[in-house]
C-alpha cells in the first residue's frame, strides 16, 4: 500500500473465459497509476461498469 505518493492500484485478470477463448498465459499484475501530484482519498469500485470513483485532493 502506498502512502500519498504515486496513488493507484494493481489488478490481475483471472477470468476463466480467457482460457476458454484460447488465451493461456500466466496471469500478470497490471499497474494503474494516477499521478504523483495527487493524493487519493476515498474510492469506490464497480466492476460491472469498469468504474472507479475516487476523491483526489490537490
Amino acid at each position: 500500500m502506498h502512502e500519498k505518493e504515486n496513488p493507484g492500484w494493481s489488478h490481475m485478470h483471472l477470468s476463466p473465459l480467457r482460457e476458454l477463448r484460447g488465451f493461456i498465459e500466466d496471469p500478470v499484475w497490471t499497474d494503474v497509476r494516477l499521478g504523483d501530484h495527487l493524493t487519493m482519498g476515498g474510492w469506490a469500485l464497480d466492476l460491472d461498469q469498469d468504474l472507479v470513483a475516487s476523491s483526489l485532493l490537490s
Partner: protein
Amino acid sequence: MHALNLILYVSFSTGVPVGRLEIHIIHFTTGKRHKSANIPEVQLELAGKYNRPFGTHIEIMGNYLVILLAHGTSLRNFQTLYLVDWIKGHVIHVSAPPSITFVCLLYVLTSRIATTLLRKYLFPSLDIHIRGHLRFRA
C-alpha cells in the same frame, strides 16, 4: 464486465487541508478517464470549516455517486453528503451542515427551560368551546 479482477492495493491518505477536492471518474482496468463520463473530474464545493484531516467515503449506485465527506475543526465535526450524477458530471444535491448559529439557537430552543418558558406563548392550551361552554381542554 465479465472479467474477474482482483484489486491488490489502493493508496490513500489520511487527509490534510487541501485546496481542491475532486471526484475522478476513471476506468478500473486502465486508470484512464471513463468514456461514459462527460466530465471526468467533478469539483466538490466544501461547505464548513476544517483545519484537520478529513475523510471521504464513496458509494456507487448505478449512474450516481453518494459521497460522504467528514471534516471539521478541533471544536466541531461536519459531515457533508453529496449526490453526484457521474455520467453528466454534476452535483445534484449537497446536504449543507447547519451553521454554528443555527445549532446554538436550536439547542437553546429545545432546552428544558426554554420549552417551559415558551410553551405558553408558542403552544397555548387548546380550548374547544361548543355553544359557549367549555367542553375540551388539551
